[in-house]
Every structure is written in structure tokens, then in C-alpha cells.
């Protein structure tokens, strides 16, 4: 991509200064302003939160092995699914790709030496950690049982659990999102290298830009909503509780105004990662670059006008239901544009099935299933039957886990050699991708059937006729858990024992691959000058080589 540093030669990581060995000691990490180190601080934090959310999920699936509940009391079960939802959504998925890979890669991909506001970037991490601590304290002091949606008036009036602490944790963590989004928007606007025009930007940057828009425009609304919830709970100001003169649907409108776009905060960065992986492992320029780029912005914008499909059966007017149903169908268009363009990119590509590519291909299949089942739920009539059932649980897990987590892992595997300068064992990585794919489908496909048959979500018990599918789902969760542990082991192993990666182990295009691995602290010795389009892979007669 850059003419200045295209033919870089490998220099052993031990014999040069890079961002990992420039300074040592805990203080050098806690006070760092380097976007790469801050990305790694986020990586550690969200991995820990993923572990907490994962433990809650494991206990839930163990409980559901028996119809009467094998493990915990119903009250405890309520706290488990609430903890799982809150932690996974607000403390893992929302910051997952943006705060880790986004922080690490945005300056590298656009040819900058850091983000626009490095101190603000570090402050974002501290704010996020404070939010995490609040949430963990809420879990330790009795937990919260409202579900991740905090629906009123239960959460504002009747719940006797640590609702306020959990809400405070989300409120605080939200500011981290806003500041990160702001930082990314300014960075992308102001700090691109000479020649890095908007239409030469990697598609990951476009998706991060769209995500940042949602961060900035949507997150303040959830903050205000949770503040109002607190006001009603503490001071009994009538906002959402009908007994106090409030409107419970107002809470749902405000909550989903953020929380539906939040789904796209989770999936848009994943789409950005996949848009990098598919060309890299097909050795081909992405098909329809500008369509994929603009579809990210279209998804971000449309995501803000579809929230009412969460409220078809909660008392929303039929007229509003019709409007939101039609609008919800619109979001399928830019999503489909992406899927078609990724698959068109594969055509006549020189495809290699290394671990990141397996995750990308898994993403396309699982996201498509998750997206298409979303159309069932956007239809007014079918939603009446499926709302509140396991069909919804399966649907959004296909998007959030099958989509977002697969892309996150694909991205981690793709850029791990750049981040650490080490290679991981590819065979194990491919094996784990396969295990995760199988485990995921085994866990969540039965839940589509369970939901269609009418099993409601959020119950600790269920009729005996649903047991075999529930056991299947729990068995799948065990496989999935093993699939997540394997990468944790070999990635940590690779830090010490992995062979040196070299600057560009995948022979990929992009500015980040033109510098040493791990990158030097200042990223680029000289400001790169970009003279080529993104994904300019060589082709002969229209076929990639």
C-alpha cells in the first residue's frame, strides 16, 4: 500500500525496540498513552469480563439439563441470566472489537502515530474499569435479577436486588464508549497519512467510523435512561411507573433507542474484520468496495429507526408496530449487500483456509442465519408467537456470538502476529475454529426449535417434553466452552514459544503489514505516503494469484 515501506525486511524482535519492550514495569502499562498498549489493557479487561459472563452462562445451561432445574433456585437463575446478559453485552461485546482491535489498529491502518487524543484514550480505559468494578460489586453483593433490559416498573420499584449498582456500572462504562467513539471519529478525520483518501481506507476503518457514530449518538441516551431509572427508584419521581403517573413503555422506547443500535455496535466492527479477512485469504480486492463501505454507514443510520420491533407485544400501538416493522426490514438490505459482496469476493479468489479465514467463513454463515431469523421477528404476526421464546435467544446469539464473537476471534487470530510478533500453532487454531463452530450450532440451533415449540426464555424450569433439546443445547455449550479455552491456551503459549512472525506473515495488504511486528512505539519511522487502493492484490486475467 505504501511505497515508502513496502519492502520491509524482518528484524528479530529481540534485537530492536518496539512498543512491548520500550518500557517495562506495571507503571509503564498503567500510565501508557500508546494506543497499542491501551488496546491490550482493554483486551485483558474484556477477556476477564467474558470469563465472568461465561461462568454465568455455564451455570444456566447446567441448570437447564433437568426440567425442574438441576442446580440453582429460580431466584438465583434470574440473577445468572441477568449477570450473563449485562456483562456480555455492556462489558464484553460493546467494547470487544472497537476498544481492542480498533485501538490497536486504527492509527496503524491510516498511517498515524497514535489516536487524536491519547490521554482521553487512557482515561476511557480507566472509566471502563471503574464501570466493570461497579458491576462486579453488584454481582458480589447479591446480584441483579432484572435481565439485561432493566424493564420498568420491576427494576424501578419492585426488584430488591443490586439494580442501582449494576445500572451505575453501565452508566459509567457508557462514558468510556462515548470518549472512544469521539476519539476514533476525530482520528479518522484528521490523522490519515498523505494519500490515504476516504476511498483508500481499509473497510475496517469504515466500520469503526460507523460504530463510533452509534457510540456518540446512542450511548448518552442509555445513560440518561438509567439515570431516570435511578431517580424513580431512589426518589420515586414518576417517570416509568404507572402507579406514580409514569409510562413503562417510555422506558422501553429510550432503552431500545440505544440498545438496538448497540447490536450494530457489536456486529459492525465484526463486519469490518471480515471485510479485511476475506480479501487477505482470497488474495483479491474486495468486490464492491464502496457498497461495502456505505452499507456500514447505512446500517448505522437505519439501526436508529427500528427499535420498536422489540415492543410489538408490550403494549405499543399497532400503528407504531406497522411503522417499525417496515423500517426493520430495511436494515436487511445493507446487511445483505455485505454478505453478497463477501461471497462475490471469494469468486475466482485464491482461497486459503487458515484459521482467521475459517472464522470469517463461519461468521458469514452464522450471521446470515441470525439475520434471516431476525426477519421472522420483524414481522408483526410471527413475532406475536415467537416473542419471549427461545427463538429470540437463538436469533440474537447467532448475531452476537456466531457473528460478533467469531469475527472478534478471527480478528485476534489475524492480527495476533502483528500484536505480539509471534505465530501461534495454525493446526490448533483451525481445530478450535471448527470446535467453536460445531459447539455454537449445537448450543443454539436447538433453541430455535425450542422457541418455535413455545418454550419461554428466562425460566429456570420447563415442561419435560423440552428436555432432550435442552440437553443437546447444554452439551453444545460444553463443546463451545472447550472451543474458547483452546485459543486461550495456545495464544498464551505463543507469547513465549511461538516462532517469530515477521512483518507480514499473511502477505496481506495494508499499512499495518508494512512495519515490523510488534510495531515500534511510534508506529512508523517516517510518515507513509499512500499511493494505492486498499486490497490491491495482484491478479492475472481476473484470477487472483
Amino acid at each position, binding site marked *: 500500500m505504501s511505497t515508502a515501506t513496502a519492502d520491509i525486511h524482518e528484524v528479530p524482535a529481540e534485537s530492536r525496540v518496539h512498543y512491548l519492550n520500550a518500557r517495562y514495569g506495571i507503571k509503564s502499562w498503567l500510565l501508557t*498513552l500508546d494506543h497499542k498498549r491501551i488496546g491490550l489493557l482493554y483486551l485483558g479487561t474484556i477477556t476477564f469480563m467474558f470469563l465472568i459472563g461465561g461462568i454465568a452462562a455455564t451455570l444456566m445451561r447446567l441448570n437447564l439439563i433437568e426440567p425442574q432445574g438441576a442446580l440453582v433456585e429460580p431466584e438465583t437463575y434470574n440473577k445468572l441470566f441477568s449477570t450473563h446478559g449485562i456483562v456480555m453485552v455492556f462489558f464484553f461485546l460493546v467494547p470487544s472489537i472497537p476498544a481492542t482491535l480498533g485501538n490497536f489498529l486504527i492509527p496503524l491502518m491510516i498511517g498515524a502515530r*497514535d489516536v487524536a487524543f491519547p490521554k482521553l484514550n487512557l482515561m476511557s480505559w480507566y472509566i471502563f474499569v471503574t464501570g466493570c468494578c461497579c458491576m462486579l460489586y453488584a454481582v458480589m453483593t447479591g446480584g441483579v435479577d432484572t435481565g439485561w433490559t432493566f424493564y420498568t416498573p420491576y427494576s424501578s420499584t419492585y426488584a430488591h436486588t443490586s439494580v442501582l449498582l449494576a445500572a451505575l456500572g453501565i452508566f459509567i462504562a457508557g462514558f468510556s464508549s462515548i470518549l472512544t467513539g469521539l476519539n476514533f471519529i476525530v482520528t479518522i478525520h*484528521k490523522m490519515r497519512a*498523505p494519500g490515504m483518501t476516504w476511498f483508500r481506507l481499509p473497510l475496517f476503518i469504515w466500520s469503526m467510523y460507523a460504530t463510533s457514530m452509534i457510540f456518540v*449518538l446512542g450511548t448518552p441516551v442509555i445513560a440518561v435512561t438509567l439515570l431516570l431509572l435511578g431517580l424513580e427508584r431512589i426518589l420515586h419521581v414518576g417517570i416509568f411507573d404507572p402507579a406514580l403517573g409514569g409510562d413503562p413503555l417510555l422506558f422501553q422506547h429510550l432503552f431500545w433507542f440505544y440498545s438496538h443500535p448497540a447490536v450494530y455496535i457489536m456486529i459492525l466492527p465484526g463486519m469490518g474484520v471480515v471485510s479485511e479477512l476475506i480479501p487477505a485469504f482470497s488474495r483479491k480486492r474486495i468486490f464492491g468496495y464502496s457498497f461495502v463501505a456505505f452499507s456500514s454507514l447505512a446500517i448505522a443510520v437505519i439501526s436508529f429507526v427500528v427499535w*420498536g420491533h422489540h415492543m410489538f407485544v408490550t403494549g405499543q*400501538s399497532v400503528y407504531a408496530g406497522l*411503522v417499525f416493522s417496515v423500517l426493520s426490514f430495511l436494515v436487511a438490505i445493507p446487511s445483505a449487500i455485505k454478505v453478497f459482496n463477501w461471497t462475490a469476493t471469494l469468486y475466482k479468489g485464491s482461497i486459503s483456509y487458515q484459521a482467521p479465514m475459517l472464522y470469517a467463513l463461519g461468521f458469514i454463515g452464522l450471521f446470515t442465519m441470525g439475520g434471516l431469523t431476525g426477519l421472522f421477528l420483524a414481522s408483526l404476526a410471527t413475532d406475536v408467537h415467537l416473542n419471549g421464546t427461545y427463538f429470540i435467544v437463538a436469533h440474537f446469539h447467532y448475531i452476537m456470538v456466531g457473528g460478533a464473537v467469531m469475527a472478534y476471534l478471527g480478528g485476534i487470530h489475524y492480527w495476533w502476529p502483528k500484536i505480539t510478533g509471534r505465530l501461534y500453532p495454525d493446526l490448533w487454531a483451525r481445530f478450535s475454529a471448527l470446535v467453536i463452530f460445531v459447539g455454537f450450532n449445537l448450543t443454539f440451533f436447538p433453541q430455535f426449535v425450542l422457541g418455535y415449540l413455545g418454550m419461554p426464555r428466562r425460566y429456570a424450569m420447563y415442561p419435560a417434553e423440552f428436555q432432550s433439546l435442552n440437553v443437546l443445547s447444554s452439551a453444545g455449550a460444553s463443546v463451545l466452552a472447550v472451543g474458547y479455552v483452546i485459543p486461550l491456551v495456545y495464544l498464551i503459549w505463543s507469547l513465549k514459544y511461538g516462532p517469530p512472525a515477521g512483518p507480514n506473515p499473511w502477505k496481506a495488504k495494508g499499512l499495518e503489514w508494512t512495519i515490523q511486528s510488534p510495531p515500534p512505539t511510534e508506529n512508523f519511522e517516517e510518515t507513509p505516503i499512500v499511493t494505492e487502493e486498499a486490497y490491491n492484490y495482484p491478479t492475472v486475467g481476473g484470477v487472483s494469484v
Partner: protein
Amino acid sequence: MSEHPGHSAHTLHEHIVPVSTYVAVFIALMFGTALTTWVAYHNLGRWNSVVALIIAVAKMLLVVLFFMHVKYNKGLSRIVIVGGFFWLGIMITLSLSDELTRRWEINPAPFNMILPYISHLHLLF
């Protein structure tokens, strides 16, 4: 890390606002707060919310224009501000599309009229 020698062209040109302007805006905001409190003790009937909102919007505009420097910024900054208000408009409008239509009844009459014809459509194929 915060220095970017390659990007000196992006140096910001900050507009210097005199302290007297800030003081004047601050006094106006305090006056608005006092006015809001005073109005709260007087029952204006259906105008209660309207008056409170007018004062709040006036105060908000002062903050946005002067404290946030929007009055002195052009281009992208203004687009961002307008975008923020547009999004607020989306939130309020679509929320009201529910609130204001909850008592609307769906009239099935037109559908009843065409239903017999639709149910026989399959005979055409």
C-alpha cells in the same frame, strides 16, 4: 506519543472568546435557573411545561453556542451538532408515533372487502 510531526497542517485555529462573554452567558444561565424556579411556584395550567421547556431550550442554546464554541466553529463541527439534534428528533418523533396513536383503531373494513378476492387468487394459477 501525542506529538504528530507529520500532521502539522492540522493545527487548530482556536477562536479566543473574551472572558466578559463567558461571564455574561453565565449570568444569563443563572437568571434562567432562577426564572425556572420562580415559574415552578406559579400554576400556568397547560403552559407549565411549555414555559419550562422554552427556558430550558434557551439555556441549552447558550451553552452550545458559547461554552461549546459552536458559534465560532464551521463545517464538520456544525454538522455534528445538527446531527445530534436530528437524532434527538428521530427519538422523540418515533416514540410519539406510539404514544399518539395508541387509541387509534385499525379499521378492518377495506380488508374485509378485498378478502374474498384475495382468497380466490390461487385459482388464477
